């Protein structure tokens, strides 16, 4: 499969047709997604119609945009007008949004071809995509393993080579962790850098949309299309983003990288070894590498699993059987609300709603919720101190390679531990990226994570690209489904 940038260049030059590329992507999905289940729905007719529009623009001498003819996988919590958007939940089964998410419009304006909507943990709550009401997604590298989550469908679609690009959302690691487990690049932008308008809300102070791609250059290309101000999102940053693709070749000479043991020590030995090799690779490329301790990160997990459920319990109050989605009748409105929510939500969503309701309830608000918000301040201050002496941080993305389907579904706390290295960036609203860096002892992909201060996406991609060039062999097969 060619890269997004090569395909777009060929389509813009009239050397390849968007229709032929889109047909190829649809054929691949039809042939292999029965096993993987990356997609919840595929909009083939709409995709081909879009491809024809792109080809028509080229035929009359126009430019369809930087993603001309590039097929793309959309996580199913991104609103697409007139197209089912389920969030992996029975409570939204069959619902078609009355508007497009801002990012969907931006993609279409750039000439991209949304191919379908991808599987996810219900309402993005999970780290394995096993919490989908519509069945799990399988990891393309080993179909007995999970793809990670919650954006596991998009990660698997890109790893399988169905689409060169994809979109996910990251509230506590839901882009980076599945990217690591599937051997692709996944990036969480700065909070407010990419519009959240039309992203179905999970935890509004943490949620962020971001790119998946097979390599760093394509991820940067997609990020540049997504980044910018949106008047429809009141948390959107008003500053104008600099293109990151222009800075990709600048290398890391003199860049100060802090290797953070607090993002490594809880990880499996093979994962920790890859992070060490990544640090050596950066040093070899001219970066100034030092160790930096940030013990406050240890409290991030607990704080996150109070803050995110608290916000979710409020955001998910809207699923009441009145305006959209499932309704289960009851004798009065309250009974109808209860019957609808009881039937429509899965176990993990119920757990988080109850946890959040408890943390916000009288008598526990100060001890849990307000305390977690103070920890958030603590983590933000710790980042600030660290960034006085280094430009970036390096650590693991996930504690292990992809685990077996079913291994953690009965123990929520062990599932939550998957997010331990990714949560700090969400609490602080900072950008971070996972880059494939060799394999684990089991031959499955390992991702290393680079963290940067707010709005330093260009630097993040530069460093990620150096890591990509230095990545050891034994990593994931490129764009194929392992036998």
């Amino acid at each position, binding site marked *: 499969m060619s890269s997004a940038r090569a395909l777009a260049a060929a389509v813009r030059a009239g050397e390849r047709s968007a229709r032929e590329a889109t047909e190829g992507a649809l054929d691949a999905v039809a042939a292999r997604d029965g096993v993987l289940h990356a997609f919840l729905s595929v909009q083939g007719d709409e995709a081909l119609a879009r491809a024809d529009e792109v080809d028509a623009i080229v035929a009359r001498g126009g430019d369809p945009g930087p993603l001309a003819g590039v097929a793309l996988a959309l996580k199913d919590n991104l609103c697409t007008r007139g197209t089912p958007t389920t969030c992996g939940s029975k409570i939204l089964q069959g619902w078609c949004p*009355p508007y497009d998410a801002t990012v969907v419009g931006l993609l279409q304006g750039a000439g991209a071809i949304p191919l379908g909507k991808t599987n996810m943990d219900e309402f993005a709550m999970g780290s394995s995509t096993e919490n989908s009401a519509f069945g799990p997604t399988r990891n393309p590298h080993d179909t007995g393993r999970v793809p990670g989550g919650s954006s596991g469908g998009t990660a698997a679609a890109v790893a399988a080579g169905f689409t060169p690009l994809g979109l996910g959302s990251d509230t506590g690691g839901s882009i980076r962790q599945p990217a690591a487990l599937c051997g692709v690049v996944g990036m969480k932008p700065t909070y407010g850098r990419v519009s959240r308008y039309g992203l179905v809300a999970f935890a509004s102070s943490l949620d962020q949309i971001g790119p998946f791609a097979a390599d760093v250059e394509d991820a940067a290309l997609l990020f540049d299309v997504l980044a910018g101000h949106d008047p429809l999102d009141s948390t959107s940053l008003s500053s104008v983003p600099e293109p990151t693709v222009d800075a990709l070749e600048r290398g890391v000479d003199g860049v100060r990288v802090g290797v953070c043991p607090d993002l490594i020590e809880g990880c499996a030995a093979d994962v920790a070894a890859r992070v060490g090799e990544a640090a050596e690779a950066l040093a070899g490329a001219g970066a100034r590498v030092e160790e930096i301790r940030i*013990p*406050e990160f240890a409290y991030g997990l607990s704080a996150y699993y109070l803050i995110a459920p608290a916000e979710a319990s409020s955001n998910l109050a809207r699923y009441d059987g009145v305006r959209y989605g499932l309704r289960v009748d009851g004798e009065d409105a309250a009974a109808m609300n209860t019957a609808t*929510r009881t039937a429509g939500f899965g176990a993990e969503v119920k757990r988080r709603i109850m946890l959040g309701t*408890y943390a916000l*309830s009288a008598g526990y608000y100060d001890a849990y919720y307000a*305390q977690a918000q*103070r920890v958030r301040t603590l983590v933000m201050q710790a980042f600030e101190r660290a960034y006085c002496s280094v430009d970036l941080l390096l650590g693991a993305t996930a504690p292990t390679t992809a685990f077996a389907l079913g291994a953690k579904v009965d123990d929520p*706390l062990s599932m939550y531990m998957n997010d331990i290295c990714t949560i700090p960036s969400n609490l602080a609203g900072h950008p971070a990226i996972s880059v494939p860096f060799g394999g684990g002892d089991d031959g499955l992909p390992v991702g290393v994570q680079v963290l940067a201060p707010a709005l330093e996406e260009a630097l993040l991609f530069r460093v990620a690209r150096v890591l990509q060039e230095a990545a050891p062999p034994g990593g994931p097969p490129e764009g194929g489904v392992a036998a």
Partner: protein
Amino acid sequence: MNGAGDPGRPTTSNPVTLSRDDVIHVARLARLELGDDEVELFTAQLRSVLDHAADVAALDLAHLEPSTRPIAVENVLRPDEPRPSLDRAEILAAAPSVEDHRFRVPRIGGEAP
């Protein structure tokens, strides 16, 4: 830890252990109905999460302000001018029950306080 400060020291005011009745109460607040087996399961699972959170609850962080979001809060305004909203027919078409261009719901009232 040079310059890193003290992340906090434990206090004695650890929150109490989550009970079965707490789970039933919270489920009712959230409009969820749980079977007996679910109450058992969720009590144990939520307790393990809250036990883990005891590390945070035990910190003395009175000197820190709580953060509600990662960016500064600012008021966002736009000119107060009429403009088209979402299409009413499209919105109503997605509703489970509609009557006279409105959302139809069962009787409201007779609810427990």
